[in-house]
């Protein structure tokens, strides 16, 4: 190996020296042989002649020697590259288009691959990530459920498969009085442009800190080293232990400027004193998807009061997900089998559980095994789209190359005629394509790292800061660089080979005589390309029409009549108020102060209280006419059904602009006395008492035995509630349709406090939010409050998110596809013009006018486009109908979307046809006919 490298280096670097030596060596041989011949008695002239003849061609031998010592490979590579670069520089238009096309394909491919890898494939940065396993509770509805604390303890103490089984609970949020209140920075640009916003905290109100709760054995299991102090250990996670907390390196740097004396200091979280025991490395995520500010033992959630010790011991309160490390030699299926037995034991000792609950043990190496089928479908679709984009890019560049090789037929034929080998010629053409690909790869790499950076920055800034810090490593690493290069080179060979093969097959004779452009020849070659272009156009049209439908639909969703006012309502929600540990009386007092304080702000019309807001705060409860028997089978009108519900203050209806159609609203006395009265939506009345007057009828709300619920939630139960009013229908539980049932219950302002306030304003509520924030701070500086105009809450609705994000993605891919399709059209028409130069010349010589020629060329180019567009429109109509059944606000027959997008696309494609076709018009008949 070393030898070869040395001889190769010598051959490359000391070229003249090597040549001289070769010459000297061969001449020495001939001279020596001549001397020997002279010695046998021949004359000197005769000897020289004989020696030269017997030696053979000196130049030929030298060439063979150069080949043998690897001299020529280098030589011809340098030659090819230099020639290739010259050819590319000579056609700057072609080069730019081809390189840009490939850059797009490669850049997007790399971006998506990197994101996929960073999110799902990269092993977690912990000790031996391959042994980690995540345990989920499976029910028919939920494959990745979490466990209650007692169930976790049972698995932890009875299993033999894991060396450690820890518990991880997602960020509950705590507030600290020691930290300055920080507002959110500039609004995220991309998310803002898409129109997707998450409710942000009111500026001025207290800011929460993200905290993950883990069992004491979590850090010993993962095996990390702290940068300061120590990590959490099992002794910290006892109900009796002193409250301690571990700080993330990111939070330490951000909020404490890397204070070296942080360990041992006290941090007040929700008013409880916690001792900081250590600091993790920066960007340390453990098994979490992002970096929290703090890590605390599970027992700390009892100290903080976010869980009572009774709730922690309840089998009905979901706490977190177990994550374990398998013992050496234990496989995932062994662990699965063992845990299934334990699950059966738990079921046996708790007969009231649903029988179908099971467990699933999945690899915890990365998040790959935790994907839901829906996410799988999305990822597969995204990857397929991206690969398709790359393929289209390659096909288009191949098409461009083919068009160009038509123009280069003569050059190639000339080189073949002069004796160039076919392989040598292929190598030349391949070198050119690889050069293109490498150029494109060189641009695509920084492009994709920029796109990734943008993506992460945008996602990070769209998330409220207390969700955690995104620590995705998206700077291009060596693997991704290799991937880009590989993709570029494979693409280079892929798109270079076909035209190269075709070009090198060129029949020397006919090409030189320019007979290749005979009339019949063009059809068979362009048919495949025509088909390609038609399908590209169809795909683009489908994407773009549907993205237009989605975007217009989501725009309409913002304006849709939900049954209540959305644009002049500010939605306020206290963030985890239970964390403040205020007594009931203080909470009620705070509620009253907030309502009064905010109502006195100029521009505020009224302030209503509700236990659940109309958007995003929905809770289901069972309701049924009080007279009917408990649930039986059958589908009668008395069948119990789920309904949305909310305890509301009497001014709720007026504030929200919901009309009371019949009856009346609650009186103050009824509310304070918690009388069993209710106001129901019109649809509820029609459902239970069709054709009758519902006023005065009785309703059973809720059920005696409650199912699993979230901490701090308590469902109402009223055996017989009198209907006193009927309110207008609302879209609340599912914004795409009127709620089948909705029930309003009276809110007692002296007994129930609510975390939700709805503020009716005279102007755009965004303008009043800062003043509301100040008011919140004045009432209680440690109270974090989310505040946003109600119509922004629409943008958190999954339907809206899907419409917006789907529409945005489809339009990006569609526009890129359009760009590529246009390049394809351009290539096709250029090719056809180049091939038919002679034919066009004849036509013009026979009297065809240039406009006729233009029409001829353009019709041929436009035919596949038209076919593609027809297919695209028909397919779009079908797909749009499908989407419309699941998303709201979408009109599948929207004429503006269909005609607008089709016209735009047609015009762009027409331009792409016209530009090269123009060249046909400029053909000089005489030049074309003479054309050698």
């Amino acid at each position: 190996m070393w030898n070869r490298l040395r001889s190769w280096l010598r051959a490359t670097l000391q070229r003249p020296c090597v040549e001289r030596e070769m010459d000297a060596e061969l001449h020495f041989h001939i001279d020596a042989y001549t001397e020997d011949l002279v010695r046998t008695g021949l004359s000197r002239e005769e000897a020289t002649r004989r020696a030269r003849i017997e030696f053979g061609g000196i130049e030929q031998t030298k060439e063979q020697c150069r080949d043998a010592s690897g001299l020529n490979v280098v030589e011809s590579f340098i030659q090819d590259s230099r020639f290739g670069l010259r050819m590319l520089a000579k056609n700057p238009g072609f080069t730019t288009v081809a390189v840009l096309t490939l850059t797009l394909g490669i850049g997007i491919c790399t971006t998506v691959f990197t994101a996929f890898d960073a999110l799902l494939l990269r092993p977690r940065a912990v000790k031996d990530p391959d042994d980690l396993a995540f345990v989920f509770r499976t029910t028919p509805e939920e494959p990745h459920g979490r466990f209650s604390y007692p169930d976790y303890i049972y698995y932890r103490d009875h299993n033999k498969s894991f060396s450690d089984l820890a518990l991880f609970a997602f960020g509950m949020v705590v507030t600290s009085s020691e930290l300055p209140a920080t507002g959110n920075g500039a609004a995220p640009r991309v998310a803002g442009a898409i129109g997707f916003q998450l409710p942000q905290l009111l500026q001025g109100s207290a800011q929460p800190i993200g905290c993950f709760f883990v069992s004491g054995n979590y850090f010993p299991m993962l095996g990390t080293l702290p940068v300061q102090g120590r990590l959490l250990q099992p002794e910290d996670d006892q109900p009796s232990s002193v409250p301690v907390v571990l700080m993330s390196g990111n939070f330490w740097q951000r909020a404490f400027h890397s204070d070296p004396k942080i360990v041992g200091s006290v941090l007040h979280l929700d008013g409880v004193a916690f001792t900081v025991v250590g600091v993790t490395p920066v960007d340390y995520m453990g098994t979490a998807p992002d970096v929290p500010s703090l890590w605390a033992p599970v027992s700390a959630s009892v100290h903080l009061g976010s869980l009572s010790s009774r709730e922690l011991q309840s089998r009905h309160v979901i706490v977190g997900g177990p994550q374990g490390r398998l013992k050496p030699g234990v496989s995932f299926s062994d662990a699965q089998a063992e845990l299934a037995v334990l699950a059966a034991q738990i079921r046996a000792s708790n007969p009231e559980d649903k029988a179908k609950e099971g467990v699933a043990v999945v690899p915890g190496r990365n998040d790959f095994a935790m994907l839901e089928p829906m996410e799988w479908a999305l990822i597969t679709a995204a990857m397929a789209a991206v690969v398709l984009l790359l393929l289209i890019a390659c096909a288009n560049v191949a098409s461009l190359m083919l068009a160009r090789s038509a123009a280069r037929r003569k050059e190639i034929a000339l080189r073949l005629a002069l004796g160039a080998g076919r392989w040598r010629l292929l190598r030349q053409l391949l070198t050119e394509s690889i050069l293109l690909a490498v150029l494109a790869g060189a641009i695509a790499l920084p492009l994709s790292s920029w796109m990734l950076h943008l993506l992460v920055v945008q996602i990070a800034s769209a998330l409220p800061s207390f969700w955690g810090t995104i620590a995705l490593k998206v700077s291009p690493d060596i693997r991704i660089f290799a991937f880009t290069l590989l993709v570029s080179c494979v693409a280079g060979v892929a798109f270079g080979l076909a035209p190269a093969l075709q070009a090198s097959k060129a029949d020397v004779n006919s090409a030189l005589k320019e007979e290749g452009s005979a009339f019949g020849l063009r059809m068979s070659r362009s048919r495949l390309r025509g088909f390609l272009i038609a399908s590209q156009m169809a795909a683009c049209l489908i994407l773009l029409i549907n993205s237009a439908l989605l975007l217009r639909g989501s725009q309409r969703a913002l304006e849709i009549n939900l049954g209540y006012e959305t644009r002049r309502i500010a939605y306020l929600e206290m963030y985890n108020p239970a964390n403040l540990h205020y007594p009931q009386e203080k909470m009620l007092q705070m509620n009253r102060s907030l309502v009064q304080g905010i109502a006195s702000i100029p521009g505020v019309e009224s302030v209503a209280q509700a236990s659940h807001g109309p958007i995003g705060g929905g809770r289901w409860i069972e309701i049924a006419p009080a007279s009917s028997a408990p649930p039986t089978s059958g589908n009668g009108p008395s069948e119990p059904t789920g309904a949305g519900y909310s305890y509301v203050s009497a001014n709720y209806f007026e504030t929200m602009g919901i009309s009371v159609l019949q009856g009346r609203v609650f009186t103050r006395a009824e509310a304070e006395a918690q009388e069993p009265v209710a106001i129901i939506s019109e649809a509820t009345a029609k459902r239970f008492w069709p054709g009758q007057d519902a006023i005065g009828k009785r309703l059973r709300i809720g059920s005696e035995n409650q199912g699993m619920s979230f901490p701090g939630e308590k469902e109402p139960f009223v055996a017989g509630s009198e209907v006193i009013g009927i309110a207008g229908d609302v879209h609340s539980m599912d914004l795409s349709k009127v709620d089948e049932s909705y029930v309003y219950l009276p809110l007692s302002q002296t007994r129930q406090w609510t975390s939700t306030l709805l503020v009716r304003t005279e102007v755009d509520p965004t303008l009043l939010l800062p003043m509301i924030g100040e008011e919140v701070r004045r009432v209680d500086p440690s109270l974090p409050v989310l505040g946003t105009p109600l119509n922004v809450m629409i943008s958190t609705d999954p339907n809206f998110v899907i419409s917006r994000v789907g529409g945005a993605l489809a339009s990006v891919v569609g526009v890129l596809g359009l760009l590529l399709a246009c390049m394809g059209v351009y290539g096709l028409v250029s090719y056809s013009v180049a091939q038919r130069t002679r034919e066009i010349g004849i036509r013009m010589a026979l009297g065809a006018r240039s406009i006729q020629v233009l029409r001829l060329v353009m019709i041929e180019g436009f035919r596949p486009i038209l076919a593609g567009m027809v297919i695209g429109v028909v397919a779009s109509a079908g797909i749009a109908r499908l989407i419309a059944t699941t998303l709201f606000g979408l009109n599948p027959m929207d004429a503006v979307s269909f005609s607008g997008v089709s016209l735009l696309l047609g015009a762009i494609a027409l331009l792409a046809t016209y530009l090269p076709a123009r060249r046909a018009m400029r053909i000089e008949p005489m030049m074309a006919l003479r054309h050698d």
Partner: protein
Amino acid sequence: MANDKQLELLQGTLDLLILKAVSLGPFHGYGILLRIQQISKDRLEIQQGSLYPALYRLEDRGLIASEWGESENNRKAKFYRLTASGKRKLQTETENWNRMADVIAGVLRTTPEEV
């Protein structure tokens, strides 16, 4: 030098012959040619020009090494010698050749009765 009884060289055997010749001591190209003819008693026909590409190829593979020196009649000439890996190569190739020759000879000796 032409001789009616000369055999044409089998494909690929020139490399082996060069390695063998060089194993007897360092030679320049012409010397290698003479040595092969001498030990083969002029029974092999070697194209003089084909010798050099073979030498360059073997040197490229590191089986032989070259350096400039003085020839018998005091002219500068390029001398080739066997390298360590060339020595190993010669050994294995010689064994291969002998085995192959045995097998082929055996096959050719086969009479109809033995099949």
